[in-house]
């Protein structure tokens, strides 16, 4: 059973085509890496999967647990169990992290144990001091990423999309996030798609499979360990040349 199947997806933003015939799948409970240089279209893919209206699907399908969700509105996809941790989340003035989380969970009908779970995850991610702050106002890069991961954990998703969780984060915190992802996301049975251009997180999270996206298309698919090793050793440029890809 696949948690997610992206079939031949072509996507444009403001009239500009960004993704071309992208296909990708994630089995239930699998951890998949999506690698690629900056600007290759990785964020566009996850924003399209979650249903951000800015991203227009020209053709292709998104299937979640066997259901075609390509035309579903964003909030419906989220309520079905898809969660996205943003690469760069916006600031929301006057809205505290804690209040947003409580509001988010109550909307899903959850009222019990919110506080205790929140305290537990916040403590694991070392963000207790941010719970009563306005969302992302004055947060460091690493704090933003950890709060995004907290929001994802609290949603208890079936499919977690983690966009560049490791970029701009110091080594200790990448290790911390890796541990939390392993124990509390992957460990809970969630399927996970991790976007990374540095592949740093791959040191801490064992992935089953990896895709490489270049210039809006998937150029490579295979064993995560091998692909990460090659990219870390040679970088995307060399990989591209070596494999004869044309940018």
């Amino acid at each position, binding site marked *: 059973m696949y948690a997610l199947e992206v079939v031949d997806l072509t996507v444009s933003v403001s009239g500009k085509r960004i993704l071309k015939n992208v296909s990708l799948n994630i089995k239930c409970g699998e951890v998949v890496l999506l690698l690629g240089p900056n600007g290759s279209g990785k964020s566009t893919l996850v924003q399209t999967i979650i249903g951000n209206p*800015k991203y227009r699907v020209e053709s292709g399908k998104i299937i979640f647990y066997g259901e075609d969700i390509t035309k579903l509105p*964003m*909030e419906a996809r989220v309520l079905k169990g898809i969660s996205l941790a943003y690469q760069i*989340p916006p600031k929301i003035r*006057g*809205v505290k992290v804690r209040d947003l989380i409580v509001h*988010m969970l109550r*909307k899903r009908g959850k009222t019990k144990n919110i506080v205790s779970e929140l305290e537990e995850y916040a403590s694991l991610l070392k963000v207790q001091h941010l719970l009563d702050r306005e969302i992302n106002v004055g947060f460091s890069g690493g704090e933003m990423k950890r709060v995004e991961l907290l929001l994802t954990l609290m949603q208890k998703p079936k499919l977690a999309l983690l966009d560049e969780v490791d970029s701009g984060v110091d080594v200790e915190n990448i290790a911390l996030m890796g541990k939390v992802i392993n124990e509390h996301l992957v460990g809970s049975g969630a399927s996970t798609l991790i976007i990374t251009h540095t592949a740093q997180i791959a040191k801490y999270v064992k992935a089953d499979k990896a895709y490489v996206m270049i210039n809006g298309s998937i150029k490579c698919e295979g064993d995560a360990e091998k692909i990460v090793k090659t990219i870390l050793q040679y970088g995307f440029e060399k990989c591209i040349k070596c494999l004869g890809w044309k940018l």
Partner: protein
Amino acid sequence: MNTLSKSRELFKERARKALTKKSTYGPDIDLEPYIRKHLESSSLETLNIRDPKIQTRLESVGVDVSETGRSGSYYQVDWKIISYYSRIPGVKVLTLEDALENYWDVIKDYFWKAIPVDRDKYTATVELYGRGGYVILVDDGVKVENPIQTCLLMYTRNILQAPHNIIVLGDNAELHVITGCTFLKEPSGIHLSVSEFYVGKGSKLTFTMIHGWGLQQHIRPRTGVIVEDEGEFISHYIVLSPPGTLQTYPTVKLRGRDSKAYISSVSVGLNTSIMDIGAEIILEGRRSIGEIVSRSLGRDKSTITARSRIVGLGRESKGHIECMGLLLSDSAVIEAVPQLSAQTDDVELTHEASIGRIAEDEIYYLMSKGFTYEEAKSIIVRGFMSIEVKGIPKTLRNMIENVINIVSSKL
């Protein structure tokens, strides 16, 4: 003629000369029809303040109708005083008339001392035609935990309501006042008020005012505040439903050393309302600190002008202005006018101002957390309107949050 009569006559003389003096800001209102009606009207219709409809209206502007959490209260409808009392020893809640007659020796040092009677035709009208207004006197060293609530309510069609309020805190005293002003039946008429607040040495006064008006109403409050050494004044003003026109520009003089003032306002512009909401802090005392924070939200064809001015005179004084506007309509107008004036080289004055509409990315971000477009918008608007006012009691903070929740859900 006793000293009260003599002083009043002098004030009235100055007021008469200022009856045609326009305000520097805001649309000019012809007061003549209101004054004429005021002079003709004899008595107020019978009004039951315990009527459930009236109570709901009062609650909408933060009034605790049960009064259980209040240290005292003052109710005035049109020009008629309904009730007033204080539960706390060392705190007097009086009417202006009562205070002038029985406490002139105290009041004379505060009556028209923070605002000139001839500032404009509105202050002049309050002196010449006004009735009522609350006077709260707090003795030295008295710290009042629960707030005192004051309610200035308008009932009769095209009424002139013109109270003169005075609050005096002795030294090392503390008081929270919550004022709810709204109409009970006819959303018409003019509300002029003069408020003079005096904060003694080491004292703290917090003043939360919630206004809910109708489009046929015109509002011109005039406020002057004087703060002595180490005194603190915190004011939070919320205009939930706007009148036809509103103009206010409270002036806080931080006369004492190490004195502080924080003035915040949240105004929601709807329909064709025109609001000119300002504030001025004069940093006179050494190391005095002032901050003005405003949030203006413009919908429909409303116009909001958010003025703020900090004047740095005292050495090592500091001031900051933060004004933000959020436009929810193409036809609304928000104008921010932050002004800083440093009159010695040893002051630090800063400001930040921004006006914009809701960023789409913020809405999509919240939708990615499971909210609908409308819910996301409402969360952002609510967040925009929430100012964390430090120093006011939790009960008042909760009350403000509830009020903001209700308003933002309707926008």
